[in-house]
C-alpha cells in the first residue's frame, strides 16, 4: 500500500498574528513558519502504518512557493521515503490545491491520501473533502483513530456529538485530527539523511492547473478588541460582581 501525505507551510502556531496596516493581509515577513500542525499528525500516521508493515511507501507532497519544500524535508526527516514539491505562487485556495493533488494522485496512484483536517492559517477545512469529491473516493475526515484492514480502513472521527466510526474502502482520503497520534521529532542524523532523499519538482502550470484565486480578499482587519477587565481579590467579590455588575448569574 502506498500513502501520499499532503503538508502545508503556515505561520507557526505559536506566533502572535499581526495584521498589516494596509488591510492587505497578515505580516509574514521575518515570521517563523512551520508545518501545519495536523499535517504533522498525518505524516506520523503514514510512517507508523509503514513501520507496522502495512504500507510500502510514504510520499510527502506540498504545494506552494520555493520555501514550502521545508515541510517536505521535515516529513522526509521523520520517515517519508520521497517528496514532491508542486510550485505555485500567491494565495492558493483549497479548490486549486485539491485539483493539483488530483493530478498527482492520478500519476502516483496511491492507495491512501492523508492530510491535516484544517490549516491553521486560512482555517478553511476543505482540501481533503474536495480532493475526495474530485476523485469520487471515500472521505474519512477528522480522524482520531485509524485501523488498517485488508482493503479498507476503519476510522474513528471526532464529531460534535462525540465519536463516529465509519469504514472506508481503499483508495480513500483521510483528514487527521491532532489527537490521532503524537508526532515524533526528527533526529539530527535523520535530518541529514533527509537531504539525500529524492524530492521531485513540479509546477502547477506543468500540471495544467490555474491557481488564480476565485475569492477576492477585500480586506483583512484586526478583530474588535475586548476592553480590559479587572482582577478580583476573592471568590466572594467575584460572585458579587457576576451577580450585581455583570448580571449573568
Amino acid at each position, binding site marked *: 500500500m502506498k500513502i501520499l501525505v499532503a503538508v502545508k507551510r503556515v505561520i507557526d502556531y505559536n506566533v502572535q*498574528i499581526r495584521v498589516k496596516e494596509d488591510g492587505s493581509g497578515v505580516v509574514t515577513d521575518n515570521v517563523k513558519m512551520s508545518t501545519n500542525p495536523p499535517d504533522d499528525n498525518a505524516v506520523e500516521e503514514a510512517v507508523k502504518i509503514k513501520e507496522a508493515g502495512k504500507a510500502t511507501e510514504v510520499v510527502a507532497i506540498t504545494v506552494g512557493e520555493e520555501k514550502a519544500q521545508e515541510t517536505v524535508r521535515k516529513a522526509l526527516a521523520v520517515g517519508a521515503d520521497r517528496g514532491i514539491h508542486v510550485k505555485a505562487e500567491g494565495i492558493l485556495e483549497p479548490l486549486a490545491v485539491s485539483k493539483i493533488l488530483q493530478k498527482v494522485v492520478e500519476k502516483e496512484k496511491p492507495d491512501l491520501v492523508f492530510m491535516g483536517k484544517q490549516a491553521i492559517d486560512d482555517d478553511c477545512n476543505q482540501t481533503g473533502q474536495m480532493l475526495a469529491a474530485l476523485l469520487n473516493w471515500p472521505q474519512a475526515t477528522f480522524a482520531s483513530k485509524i485501523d488498517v484492514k485488508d482493503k479498507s480502513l476503519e476510522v474513528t472521527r471526532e464529531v460534535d456529538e462525540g465519536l*463516529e466510526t*465509519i469504514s472506508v474502502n481503499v483508495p480513500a482520503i483521510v483528514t487527521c485530527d491532532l489527537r490521532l497520534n503524537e508526532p515524533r521529532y526528527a533526529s539530527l542524523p535523520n535530518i541529514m539523511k533527509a537531504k539525500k532523499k529524492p524530492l521531485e519538482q513540479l509546477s502547477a502550470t506543468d500540471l495544467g492547473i490555474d491557481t488564480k484565486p476565485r475569492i477576492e480578499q477585500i480586506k483583512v482587519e484586526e478583530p474588535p478588541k475586548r476592553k480590559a477587565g479587572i482582577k478580583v481579590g476573592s471568590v466572594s467579590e467575584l460572585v458579587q460582581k457576576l451577580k450585581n455588575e455583570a448580571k449573568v448569574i
Partner: protein
Amino acid sequence: MSVLLIAEHNNKELKPFTLNAITAASQIDQDLHVLVIGHNADNAAKAASSVPLVKKVIQIDNSIYENYLAENFTPVIIKHAENYSHIVCSANTFGKNLMPRIAALMDCSQISDIIKVVSPDTFLRPIYAGNAFATVKSNDKKKCVTIRPTSFDAAPSDGGTAEIIKGDGADEFTLTKFVKKEEIKSDRPELGTARIVISGGRGMQSGDNFKLITAIADKLNAAIGASRAAVDAGYITNDHQVGQTGKVVVPDLYIAVGISGAIQHLAGMKESKVIVAINKDGEAPIFSVADYGLEADLFEALPQFLEELNKLNTIQK
C-alpha cells in the same frame, strides 16, 4: 436568486444550529429553501416548515440516508442545486465534512465559517484562529458557504407553514459505510448553545477533579467545556473541547478554570459576553481576555465558588 440550506437533523428533530444557519441564510436572500435528507424524518421536515423564514422544504426519504454520510448526501444536493444561487449549511462537523465535497463538484471556491453577511456575495470570516477577520467576495456563479452558527441568533421556530415537497434521492455510494456513533448523552445544556459555560484545562490535573467543575455546572445549569490540553490528557471527552479545532462558544458567561489561554483556545471563546478566569498564574494569557480575573488556586477557589453560589440561593434556569 434563492438559497438552499442543508438541514442538520437526527431524523426526529432539527439540530438547534440549523435555526442559526437559517437566520444567516435569510440575510443572503429571503427566498430560502431547506433540504431535509434523511429516513423517516417527517418530523424534522415539519419542524423546518414551521420556521417562518423558510419558504419551502424539500424532503428526500430513503433508508440509505438514515445515517449521515457526505458521500451519500452530496449527489442528492447536486441534483437539487440547479435553481439556487447559494448552497449553505452550518460550519460544525456536519457542514465542514459535507460542503467542500459539494463545492468541488460544482467547481466553486467555498467560503467557510462566515460570521457576517455583508452582501449576497461578500462575507466576513475569521482567519488565523480569529486573530484576523477577512472580508471576502465570491466571484463564483454558485456560491457554497458555511455559517458559524454561534455568530447568528437562532431563527424563531414556529408559526410558519412552508410547503413540504418530496424530492428524489440519488444512487448510494457503497464504498463508505457507517459503523457506529458514540454519542455522549447528557441532561446538561449543549455546549454550543448554553447560556453559561464552565471549562477546565490542564490545571485540573485529573479527570476526577472535573467533579469540582461539574458541581458548579449543576448549580448554574451550565455546559462543561475543556481546553485541548485537558482532552489530550484524557481528563474529559473530545466533545467538550473549545477552541480553533474544537467548538466555538459564545455564552453570556464563560468561566475558564486552570486554562492558560493559548490562542487556539481563545479562538473558541473570546466572543463570550462575560469571561471569568481562575488561574494561579497571574501572567497567564487568559487574563488578557477576562472581564474578571481571579488569581487563585482552583482547588481552593472552586469549592468556595460553589459555597457562594449556594448562598445566593437563586435557581438558574
